[in-house]
Protein backbone atom coordinates (compact mmCIF):
# COMPACT_ATOMS: atom_id res chain seq x y z
CA UNK A 1 0.00 0.00 0.00
CA UNK A 2 1.63 3.17 -1.19
CA UNK A 3 -0.87 5.67 0.19
CA UNK A 4 -1.85 4.11 3.48
CA UNK A 5 -2.01 6.29 6.61
CA UNK A 6 -3.38 6.04 10.12
CA UNK A 7 -1.94 9.18 11.69
CA UNK A 8 -1.51 12.80 10.68
CA UNK A 9 2.22 12.33 10.79
CA UNK A 10 2.02 9.56 8.21
CA UNK A 11 -0.41 11.58 6.11
CA UNK A 12 1.84 14.64 6.07
CA UNK A 13 4.80 12.49 5.12
CA UNK A 14 2.86 11.14 2.14
CA UNK A 15 1.88 14.67 1.10
CA UNK A 16 5.51 15.71 1.20
CA UNK A 17 6.85 12.64 -0.54
CA UNK A 18 4.42 12.90 -3.45
CA UNK A 19 4.08 16.66 -3.33
CA UNK A 20 0.32 16.38 -3.21
CA UNK A 21 -2.44 17.96 -1.12
CA UNK A 22 -4.27 15.85 1.47
CA UNK A 23 -7.33 15.43 -0.75
CA UNK A 24 -5.36 13.69 -3.48
CA UNK A 25 -3.65 11.35 -1.04
CA UNK A 26 -7.09 10.48 0.36
CA UNK A 27 -8.44 9.81 -3.11
CA UNK A 28 -5.51 7.60 -4.04
CA UNK A 29 -5.70 5.81 -0.70
CA UNK A 30 -9.31 4.88 -1.39
CA UNK A 31 -8.67 3.86 -4.99
CA UNK A 32 -5.81 1.65 -3.90
CA UNK A 33 -7.76 0.24 -0.99
CA UNK A 34 -10.76 -0.85 -3.05
CA UNK A 35 -8.78 -1.53 -6.18
CA UNK A 36 -11.00 0.82 -8.19
CA UNK A 37 -10.14 3.64 -10.58
CA UNK A 38 -9.87 7.19 -9.20
CA UNK A 39 -12.91 8.13 -11.31
CA UNK A 40 -15.08 5.69 -9.35
CA UNK A 41 -13.91 7.16 -6.06
CA UNK A 42 -14.66 10.67 -7.32
CA UNK A 43 -18.11 9.61 -8.47
CA UNK A 44 -18.90 8.21 -5.05
CA UNK A 45 -17.89 11.44 -3.36
CA UNK A 46 -20.04 13.36 -5.84
CA UNK A 47 -23.03 11.28 -4.77
CA UNK A 48 -22.34 12.28 -1.18
CA UNK A 49 -22.05 15.93 -2.21
CA UNK A 50 -25.35 15.80 -4.12
CA UNK A 51 -27.16 14.13 -1.23
CA UNK A 52 -25.86 16.79 1.17
CA UNK A 53 -26.96 19.49 -1.24
CA UNK A 54 -30.46 18.01 -1.39
CA UNK A 55 -30.71 17.93 2.39
CA UNK A 56 -29.66 21.60 2.57
CA UNK A 57 -32.06 22.61 -0.17
CA UNK A 58 -35.00 20.89 1.50
CA UNK A 59 -34.03 21.96 4.99
CA UNK A 60 -33.81 25.71 4.41
CA UNK A 61 -37.38 25.73 3.12
CA UNK A 62 -38.95 23.47 5.69
CA UNK A 63 -41.27 24.46 8.52
CA UNK A 64 -41.80 20.87 9.58
CA UNK A 65 -41.49 20.23 13.29
CA UNK A 66 -40.35 16.88 14.61
CA UNK A 67 -42.73 14.50 16.37
CA UNK A 68 -41.54 15.86 19.73
CA UNK A 69 -41.98 19.47 18.55
CA UNK A 70 -38.55 20.25 20.02
CA UNK A 71 -36.99 21.29 16.73
CA UNK A 72 -37.82 22.37 13.19
CA UNK A 73 -38.05 25.58 11.20
CA UNK A 74 -34.90 27.23 12.52
CA UNK A 75 -32.93 26.74 9.30
CA UNK A 76 -35.58 28.78 7.54
CA UNK A 77 -35.35 31.49 10.21
CA UNK A 78 -31.60 31.69 9.84
CA UNK A 79 -31.68 31.61 6.05
CA UNK A 80 -34.11 34.54 6.01
CA UNK A 81 -31.53 36.65 7.82
CA UNK A 82 -29.39 36.62 4.68
CA UNK A 83 -31.71 39.36 3.43
CA UNK A 84 -31.26 41.25 6.63
CA UNK A 85 -27.55 41.01 7.35
CA UNK A 86 -27.47 44.40 9.00
CA UNK A 87 -29.26 42.72 11.84
CA UNK A 88 -26.50 40.17 12.26
CA UNK A 89 -23.08 40.32 13.85
CA UNK A 90 -21.74 37.46 11.81
CA UNK A 91 -21.34 37.91 8.08
CA UNK A 92 -23.02 36.27 5.11
CA UNK A 93 -20.66 33.31 5.21
CA UNK A 94 -21.20 32.45 8.86
CA UNK A 95 -24.97 33.04 8.93
CA UNK A 96 -25.41 30.95 5.79
CA UNK A 97 -23.18 28.22 7.21
CA UNK A 98 -25.37 28.07 10.31
CA UNK A 99 -28.52 28.00 8.19
CA UNK A 100 -27.20 25.12 6.09
CA UNK A 101 -25.96 23.13 9.07
CA UNK A 102 -29.31 23.58 10.79
CA UNK A 103 -31.09 22.53 7.61
CA UNK A 104 -29.23 19.22 7.54
CA UNK A 105 -29.75 18.69 11.26
CA UNK A 106 -33.48 19.28 10.93
CA UNK A 107 -33.78 16.96 7.96
CA UNK A 108 -31.96 14.31 9.92
CA UNK A 109 -34.24 14.70 12.94
CA UNK A 110 -37.24 14.26 10.65
CA UNK A 111 -35.90 11.03 9.18
CA UNK A 112 -34.97 12.74 5.94
CA UNK A 113 -31.99 11.62 3.85
CA UNK A 114 -28.60 13.00 4.85
CA UNK A 115 -24.95 12.00 4.63
CA UNK A 116 -23.42 10.77 7.88
CA UNK A 117 -20.23 12.74 7.46
CA UNK A 118 -18.81 11.51 9.79
CA UNK A 119 -21.98 10.64 11.72
CA UNK A 120 -25.61 11.65 11.44
CA UNK A 121 -25.51 13.67 14.66
CA UNK A 122 -22.65 15.79 13.33
CA UNK A 123 -23.78 15.76 9.69
CA UNK A 124 -24.51 19.49 9.48
CA UNK A 125 -21.06 20.89 10.12
CA UNK A 126 -19.32 19.83 6.92
CA UNK A 127 -22.00 20.87 4.40
CA UNK A 128 -22.66 24.02 6.44
CA UNK A 129 -19.04 25.11 6.50
CA UNK A 130 -17.88 23.90 3.11
CA UNK A 131 -20.95 24.85 1.05
CA UNK A 132 -21.27 28.32 2.51
CA UNK A 133 -17.58 29.10 2.10
CA UNK A 134 -17.52 27.61 -1.40
CA UNK A 135 -20.34 29.94 -2.40
CA UNK A 136 -18.38 32.85 -0.98
CA UNK A 137 -15.30 32.32 -3.05
CA UNK A 138 -17.22 31.01 -6.03
CA UNK A 139 -15.37 27.74 -5.80
CA UNK A 140 -16.22 25.22 -8.48
CA UNK A 141 -17.62 21.83 -7.60
CA UNK A 142 -14.18 20.34 -7.97
CA UNK A 143 -12.80 22.40 -5.14
CA UNK A 144 -15.70 21.43 -2.93
CA UNK A 145 -14.85 17.78 -3.51
CA UNK A 146 -11.27 18.48 -2.48
CA UNK A 147 -12.54 19.92 0.78
CA UNK A 148 -14.66 16.82 1.32
CA UNK A 149 -11.80 14.41 0.67
CA UNK A 150 -9.54 16.29 3.06
CA UNK A 151 -12.26 16.31 5.72
CA UNK A 152 -12.69 12.57 5.29
CA UNK A 153 -8.94 11.97 5.66
CA UNK A 154 -8.97 13.79 9.00
CA UNK A 155 -12.02 11.80 10.08
CA UNK A 156 -10.22 8.59 9.23
CA UNK A 157 -7.32 9.54 11.49
CA UNK A 158 -9.73 10.26 14.34
CA UNK A 159 -11.51 6.94 13.75
CA UNK A 160 -8.17 5.13 13.83
CA UNK A 161 -6.70 6.89 16.84
CA UNK A 162 -9.82 7.49 18.92
CA UNK A 163 -13.45 6.99 17.92
CA UNK A 164 -16.31 8.49 15.96
CA UNK A 165 -18.91 6.87 18.16
CA UNK A 166 -20.76 9.06 20.68
CA UNK A 167 -21.61 5.91 22.62
CA UNK A 168 -17.89 5.48 23.15
CA UNK A 169 -16.58 9.03 23.23
CA UNK A 170 -19.41 11.50 23.72
CA UNK A 171 -20.11 14.49 21.49
CA UNK A 172 -16.42 15.31 21.04
CA UNK A 173 -16.45 12.25 18.76
CA UNK A 174 -19.40 13.48 16.70
CA UNK A 175 -19.69 17.26 16.50
CA UNK A 176 -16.10 17.70 17.71
CA UNK A 177 -14.76 15.41 15.00
CA UNK A 178 -16.95 17.05 12.36
CA UNK A 179 -15.70 20.54 13.25
CA UNK A 180 -12.10 19.37 13.13
CA UNK A 181 -12.67 17.73 9.76
CA UNK A 182 -14.47 20.77 8.33
CA UNK A 183 -11.69 23.09 9.51
CA UNK A 184 -9.13 21.03 7.59
CA UNK A 185 -11.32 20.70 4.50
CA UNK A 186 -11.97 24.42 4.38
CA UNK A 187 -8.28 25.17 4.80
CA UNK A 188 -7.41 23.06 1.78
CA UNK A 189 -10.14 24.77 -0.26
CA UNK A 190 -8.38 28.04 0.58
CA UNK A 191 -5.11 26.63 -0.73
CA UNK A 192 -3.67 26.15 2.71
CA UNK A 193 -0.73 23.74 2.93
CA UNK A 194 -1.29 20.20 4.26
CA UNK A 195 0.39 21.31 7.50
CA UNK A 196 -2.00 24.23 7.81
CA UNK A 197 -4.96 21.91 7.27
CA UNK A 198 -3.78 19.67 10.08
CA UNK A 199 -3.15 22.62 12.39
CA UNK A 200 -6.69 23.86 11.73
CA UNK A 201 -8.01 20.38 12.55
CA UNK A 202 -5.97 20.24 15.75
CA UNK A 203 -7.05 23.68 16.96
CA UNK A 204 -10.69 22.88 16.29
CA UNK A 205 -10.58 19.49 17.98
CA UNK A 206 -8.85 20.88 21.06
CA UNK A 207 -11.84 23.17 21.57
CA UNK A 208 -14.18 20.20 21.71
CA UNK A 209 -12.29 17.78 23.94
CA UNK A 210 -14.49 16.51 26.69
CA UNK A 211 -17.79 17.54 25.13
CA UNK A 212 -20.38 15.08 26.36
CA UNK A 213 -23.29 13.50 24.54
CA UNK A 214 -26.45 14.33 26.46
CA UNK A 215 -29.35 14.58 24.01
CA UNK A 216 -32.83 15.20 25.38
CA UNK A 217 -34.82 12.00 25.42
CA UNK A 218 -31.94 10.36 23.58
CA UNK A 219 -33.06 12.05 20.37
CA UNK A 220 -30.69 13.70 17.92
CA UNK A 221 -32.37 17.08 18.25
CA UNK A 222 -31.45 19.09 21.36
CA UNK A 223 -28.65 20.15 21.74
CA UNK A 224 -27.40 18.43 18.58
CA UNK A 225 -28.74 20.67 15.83
CA UNK A 226 -27.53 23.91 17.41
CA UNK A 227 -24.16 22.36 18.18
CA UNK A 228 -23.85 21.73 14.45
CA UNK A 229 -24.71 25.31 13.56
CA UNK A 230 -22.26 26.79 16.04
CA UNK A 231 -19.65 24.22 15.09
CA UNK A 232 -19.38 25.88 11.68
CA UNK A 233 -18.24 29.07 13.38
CA UNK A 234 -15.44 27.25 15.14
CA UNK A 235 -14.43 25.46 11.93
CA UNK A 236 -14.24 28.75 10.05
CA UNK A 237 -12.35 30.35 12.95
CA UNK A 238 -9.84 27.52 13.19
CA UNK A 239 -9.25 27.67 9.45
CA UNK A 240 -8.72 31.43 9.61
CA UNK A 241 -6.20 30.93 12.39
CA UNK A 242 -4.30 28.33 10.39
CA UNK A 243 -4.25 30.56 7.30
CA UNK A 244 -2.91 33.35 9.55
CA UNK A 245 -0.07 30.93 10.32
CA UNK A 246 -1.18 30.23 13.84
CA UNK A 247 -0.05 26.72 14.69
CA UNK A 248 -1.37 24.21 17.16
CA UNK A 249 1.20 23.80 19.91
CA UNK A 250 0.09 20.20 20.39
CA UNK A 251 0.37 18.02 17.27
CA UNK A 252 -2.91 16.65 15.92
CA UNK A 253 -2.08 13.02 16.69
CA UNK A 254 -1.54 13.87 20.34
CA UNK A 255 -4.86 15.70 20.45
CA UNK A 256 -6.51 12.56 19.07
CA UNK A 257 -4.72 10.54 21.74
CA UNK A 258 -6.10 12.87 24.40
CA UNK A 259 -9.57 12.45 22.95
CA UNK A 260 -9.24 8.71 23.25
CA UNK A 261 -8.11 8.95 26.86
CA UNK A 262 -10.99 11.28 27.72
CA UNK A 263 -13.42 8.86 26.06
CA UNK A 264 -12.15 6.09 28.29
CA UNK A 265 -12.72 8.03 31.50
CA UNK A 266 -16.01 9.61 30.46
CA UNK A 267 -18.96 8.25 32.39
CA UNK A 268 -21.35 6.09 30.34
CA UNK A 269 -24.05 8.47 31.54
CA UNK A 270 -22.55 11.05 29.22
CA UNK A 271 -22.19 8.80 26.22
CA UNK A 272 -25.43 8.68 24.23
CA UNK A 273 -27.50 7.08 26.99
CA UNK A 274 -29.46 10.23 27.89
CA UNK A 275 -28.70 9.59 31.55
CA UNK A 276 -26.67 12.72 32.30
CA UNK A 277 -26.00 16.35 31.42
CA UNK A 278 -28.70 18.25 29.54
CA UNK A 279 -30.75 15.06 29.22
CA UNK A 280 -31.49 15.11 32.95
CA UNK A 281 -32.20 18.81 33.38
CA UNK A 282 -35.74 19.74 34.37
CA UNK A 283 -36.60 20.22 30.69
CA UNK A 284 -34.85 17.00 29.77
CA UNK A 285 -36.80 15.01 32.34
CA UNK A 286 -40.06 16.51 31.09
CA UNK A 287 -39.25 15.32 27.58
CA UNK A 288 -38.38 11.86 28.84
CA UNK A 289 -41.68 11.71 30.63
CA UNK A 290 -43.52 12.83 27.52
CA UNK A 291 -41.83 10.10 25.53
CA UNK A 292 -42.71 7.50 28.12
CA UNK A 293 -39.08 6.77 28.90
CA UNK A 294 -39.57 7.18 32.65
Amino acid sequence: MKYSFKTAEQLLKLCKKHNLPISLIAKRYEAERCDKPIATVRRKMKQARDAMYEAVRKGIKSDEKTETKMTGGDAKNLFKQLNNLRNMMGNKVTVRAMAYATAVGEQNANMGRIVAFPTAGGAGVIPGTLFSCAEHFHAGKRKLLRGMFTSAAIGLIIAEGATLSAAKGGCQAEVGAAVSMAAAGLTEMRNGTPEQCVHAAAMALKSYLGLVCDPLGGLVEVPCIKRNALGCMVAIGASDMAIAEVESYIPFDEVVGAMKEIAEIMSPKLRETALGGLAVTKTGIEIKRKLGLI
Partner: protein
Amino acid sequence: MSTHSIFDIAGPIMVGPSSSHTAGACKIGQYARALFHKTPKKVTFYLHGSFGEVYKGHATDRALLAGVMKFRTSDTRIKTSFDIAKEKGIAYKFIKKDLGAKCHPNTVKMVLESGKEKMTITGSSIGGGMIEIVKLNNFEISLKGVAGKYLSLVVSHDDNPEIIVKLGKKLKALGLKIANIESTSYKKKTLSVLSIEGKRITIPEAKEMETIEGVDFVRALTKIDN
Protein backbone atom coordinates in the same frame (compact mmCIF):
# COMPACT_ATOMS: atom_id res chain seq x y z
CA MET B 1 -3.44 -0.63 6.46
CA SER B 2 -6.25 1.38 7.93
CA THR B 3 -9.39 -0.67 8.27
CA HIS B 4 -11.56 2.24 7.26
CA SER B 5 -12.68 3.40 3.89
CA ILE B 6 -12.90 7.10 3.11
CA PHE B 7 -16.60 6.39 2.57
CA ASP B 8 -17.04 4.92 6.02
CA ILE B 9 -16.27 8.50 7.06
CA ALA B 10 -17.97 10.39 4.21
CA GLY B 11 -21.12 8.33 4.45
CA PRO B 12 -23.28 6.41 4.40
CA ILE B 13 -26.00 8.36 2.65
CA MET B 14 -28.78 7.51 5.05
CA VAL B 15 -32.13 8.25 6.54
CA GLY B 16 -31.79 9.93 9.94
CA PRO B 17 -31.64 10.46 12.78
CA SER B 18 -28.57 8.53 13.95
CA SER B 19 -25.70 6.89 12.09
CA SER B 20 -25.06 4.38 14.84
CA HIS B 21 -28.65 3.91 16.00
CA THR B 22 -30.44 4.15 12.64
CA ALA B 23 -28.07 3.45 9.72
CA GLY B 24 -25.87 1.04 11.69
CA ALA B 25 -28.95 -0.73 12.99
CA CYS B 26 -30.31 -1.05 9.45
CA LYS B 27 -27.01 -2.58 8.31
CA ILE B 28 -26.99 -5.08 11.17
CA GLY B 29 -30.50 -6.06 10.09
CA GLN B 30 -29.29 -6.51 6.49
CA TYR B 31 -26.47 -8.77 7.64
CA ALA B 32 -28.84 -10.82 9.75
CA ARG B 33 -31.16 -11.20 6.77
CA ALA B 34 -28.27 -12.21 4.52
CA LEU B 35 -26.97 -14.77 7.03
CA PHE B 36 -30.43 -16.21 7.64
CA HIS B 37 -30.92 -16.23 3.89
CA LYS B 38 -34.64 -15.75 3.77
CA THR B 39 -37.32 -13.47 5.06
CA PRO B 40 -38.07 -14.60 8.61
CA LYS B 41 -41.62 -15.09 9.87
CA LYS B 42 -40.64 -13.90 13.31
CA VAL B 43 -37.81 -11.76 14.67
CA THR B 44 -37.01 -10.94 18.28
CA PHE B 45 -34.57 -8.14 19.00
CA TYR B 46 -32.74 -7.90 22.34
CA LEU B 47 -31.39 -4.38 22.73
CA HIS B 48 -28.34 -3.77 24.89
CA GLY B 49 -26.73 -0.64 26.39
CA SER B 50 -27.46 2.60 24.59
CA PHE B 51 -29.52 0.62 22.07
CA GLY B 52 -31.74 -0.43 24.94
CA GLU B 53 -31.97 3.05 26.45
CA VAL B 54 -32.78 5.18 23.45
CA TYR B 55 -33.90 2.92 20.62
CA LYS B 56 -37.36 4.39 20.21
CA GLY B 57 -36.40 7.99 19.57
CA HIS B 58 -33.63 7.01 17.18
CA ALA B 59 -35.90 4.67 15.24
CA THR B 60 -33.40 1.88 15.94
CA ASP B 61 -36.34 -0.51 16.04
CA ARG B 62 -37.74 0.62 12.70
CA ALA B 63 -34.26 0.53 11.13
CA LEU B 64 -33.40 -2.97 12.39
CA LEU B 65 -36.63 -4.29 11.02
CA ALA B 66 -36.13 -2.43 7.73
CA GLY B 67 -32.70 -4.02 7.39
CA VAL B 68 -34.18 -7.46 7.95
CA MET B 69 -36.49 -6.66 5.01
CA LYS B 70 -33.43 -5.75 2.91
CA PHE B 71 -34.07 -1.99 2.82
CA ARG B 72 -30.99 0.12 2.26
CA THR B 73 -29.85 2.71 4.79
CA SER B 74 -30.92 5.49 2.41
CA ASP B 75 -34.43 4.08 1.89
CA THR B 76 -37.03 6.53 3.20
CA ARG B 77 -39.42 3.59 3.75
CA ILE B 78 -37.50 2.97 7.00
CA LYS B 79 -39.89 5.48 8.54
CA THR B 80 -42.83 3.14 7.92
CA SER B 81 -41.12 -0.24 8.30
CA PHE B 82 -43.52 -1.41 11.04
CA ASP B 83 -46.48 -1.14 8.70
CA ILE B 84 -44.60 -2.79 5.86
CA ALA B 85 -43.58 -5.70 8.11
CA LYS B 86 -47.18 -6.18 9.16
CA GLU B 87 -48.24 -6.30 5.52
CA LYS B 88 -45.57 -8.92 4.86
CA GLY B 89 -46.70 -10.94 7.85
CA ILE B 90 -43.47 -10.63 9.81
CA ALA B 91 -43.96 -10.76 13.57
CA TYR B 92 -41.48 -8.68 15.56
CA LYS B 93 -40.69 -7.90 19.15
CA PHE B 94 -38.21 -5.56 20.87
CA ILE B 95 -36.89 -6.36 24.31
CA LYS B 96 -34.43 -4.34 26.38
CA LYS B 97 -31.74 -6.67 27.72
CA ASP B 98 -28.30 -6.53 29.32
CA LEU B 99 -26.09 -8.71 27.17
CA GLY B 100 -23.04 -8.39 29.42
CA ALA B 101 -20.29 -5.87 30.05
CA LYS B 102 -18.17 -7.25 27.22
CA CYS B 103 -20.58 -6.01 24.57
CA HIS B 104 -20.18 -2.70 22.78
CA PRO B 105 -22.80 -0.25 24.11
CA ASN B 106 -24.69 -0.39 20.82
CA THR B 107 -25.40 -4.07 20.51
CA VAL B 108 -28.41 -6.11 19.48
CA LYS B 109 -29.05 -9.83 19.62
CA MET B 110 -31.52 -11.00 17.00
CA VAL B 111 -33.37 -14.27 16.89
CA LEU B 112 -34.71 -14.94 13.40
CA GLU B 113 -37.21 -17.70 12.91
CA SER B 114 -39.06 -19.25 10.03
CA GLY B 115 -40.86 -22.48 10.75
CA LYS B 116 -38.31 -24.83 12.26
CA GLU B 117 -35.34 -22.76 11.19
CA LYS B 118 -33.83 -20.48 13.76
CA MET B 119 -30.69 -18.36 13.87
CA THR B 120 -29.27 -16.09 16.54
CA ILE B 121 -27.08 -13.19 15.43
CA THR B 122 -25.45 -10.54 17.58
CA GLY B 123 -24.16 -7.33 16.05
CA SER B 124 -22.72 -4.02 17.24
CA SER B 125 -22.90 -0.59 15.69
CA ILE B 126 -19.40 0.75 16.24
CA GLY B 127 -19.82 4.36 15.08
CA GLY B 128 -20.48 6.35 11.93
CA GLY B 129 -22.68 3.59 10.53
CA MET B 130 -19.91 1.00 10.72
CA ILE B 131 -20.92 -2.33 12.17
CA GLU B 132 -19.55 -5.63 13.31
CA ILE B 133 -21.28 -8.99 13.64
CA VAL B 134 -19.81 -10.53 16.78
CA LYS B 135 -21.73 -13.74 17.23
CA LEU B 136 -23.62 -16.20 15.07
CA ASN B 137 -25.47 -18.92 16.99
CA ASN B 138 -22.76 -20.16 19.37
CA PHE B 139 -19.78 -18.92 17.40
CA GLU B 140 -17.89 -15.79 18.33
CA ILE B 141 -16.89 -14.14 15.08
CA SER B 142 -15.78 -10.79 13.76
CA LEU B 143 -17.51 -9.78 10.60
CA LYS B 144 -16.93 -6.12 9.82
CA GLY B 145 -19.29 -4.31 7.54
CA VAL B 146 -16.87 -1.86 5.95
CA ALA B 147 -16.57 -0.98 2.30
CA GLY B 148 -13.61 -2.55 0.60
CA LYS B 149 -12.30 -4.89 -2.01
CA TYR B 150 -12.99 -8.10 -0.09
CA LEU B 151 -16.26 -9.85 0.31
CA SER B 152 -17.05 -12.26 3.06
CA LEU B 153 -18.07 -15.86 2.75
CA VAL B 154 -19.47 -17.38 5.92
CA VAL B 155 -19.32 -21.15 6.07
CA SER B 156 -20.63 -23.41 8.81
CA HIS B 157 -19.13 -26.88 8.70
CA ASP B 158 -17.88 -29.93 10.62
CA ASP B 159 -14.49 -29.77 12.33
CA ASN B 160 -12.49 -31.08 9.41
CA PRO B 161 -9.72 -29.16 7.61
CA GLU B 162 -10.39 -31.18 4.45
CA ILE B 163 -13.58 -29.23 3.95
CA ILE B 164 -11.78 -25.91 3.64
CA VAL B 165 -9.39 -27.47 1.12
CA LYS B 166 -12.34 -28.62 -0.98
CA LEU B 167 -13.96 -25.25 -0.67
CA GLY B 168 -10.73 -23.56 -1.71
CA LYS B 169 -10.67 -25.66 -4.87
CA LYS B 170 -14.20 -24.67 -5.78
CA LEU B 171 -13.39 -21.02 -5.22
CA LYS B 172 -10.29 -21.29 -7.33
CA ALA B 173 -12.32 -22.82 -10.14
CA LEU B 174 -14.53 -19.72 -9.98
CA GLY B 175 -11.45 -17.51 -10.24
CA LEU B 176 -11.59 -16.34 -6.65
CA LYS B 177 -8.73 -15.94 -4.20
CA ILE B 178 -8.95 -16.44 -0.44
CA ALA B 179 -7.20 -13.53 1.25
CA ASN B 180 -7.88 -14.58 4.81
CA ILE B 181 -9.67 -17.24 6.85
CA GLU B 182 -10.81 -16.94 10.44
CA SER B 183 -12.37 -19.94 12.11
CA THR B 184 -14.01 -20.57 15.46
CA SER B 185 -15.11 -23.92 16.78
CA TYR B 186 -17.84 -24.93 19.15
CA LYS B 187 -18.83 -28.50 19.95
CA LYS B 188 -17.29 -30.17 16.87
CA LYS B 189 -18.67 -27.52 14.53
CA THR B 190 -16.66 -24.77 12.95
CA LEU B 191 -17.67 -21.44 11.55
CA SER B 192 -15.25 -19.96 9.06
CA VAL B 193 -15.28 -16.45 7.70
CA LEU B 194 -13.38 -16.22 4.42
CA SER B 195 -12.30 -12.94 2.90
CA ILE B 196 -12.53 -13.37 -0.82
CA GLU B 197 -10.98 -11.32 -3.57
CA GLY B 198 -12.41 -11.27 -7.05
CA LYS B 199 -15.90 -11.19 -8.47
CA ARG B 200 -19.17 -11.58 -6.63
CA ILE B 201 -20.48 -15.00 -5.73
CA THR B 202 -23.96 -15.79 -7.02
CA ILE B 203 -26.59 -17.65 -5.04
CA PRO B 204 -26.40 -20.81 -7.23
CA GLU B 205 -22.62 -20.81 -6.75
CA ALA B 206 -23.02 -20.63 -2.98
CA LYS B 207 -25.66 -23.37 -3.12
CA GLU B 208 -23.28 -25.53 -5.09
CA MET B 209 -20.62 -25.13 -2.37
CA GLU B 210 -23.15 -26.35 0.16
CA THR B 211 -23.07 -29.76 -1.53
CA ILE B 212 -19.61 -30.43 -0.08
CA GLU B 213 -19.99 -33.12 2.56
CA GLY B 214 -19.89 -31.76 6.08
CA VAL B 215 -20.94 -28.25 5.09
CA ASP B 216 -24.08 -26.93 6.76
CA PHE B 217 -24.44 -23.66 4.94
CA VAL B 218 -22.57 -21.11 2.84
CA ARG B 219 -23.52 -17.45 2.82
CA ALA B 220 -21.97 -14.94 0.47
CA LEU B 221 -22.32 -11.45 1.90
CA THR B 222 -22.04 -9.55 -1.31
CA LYS B 223 -25.20 -7.58 -1.71
CA ILE B 224 -24.97 -5.61 1.51
CA ASP B 225 -24.94 -1.88 0.97
CA ASN B 226 -21.86 -0.01 1.97
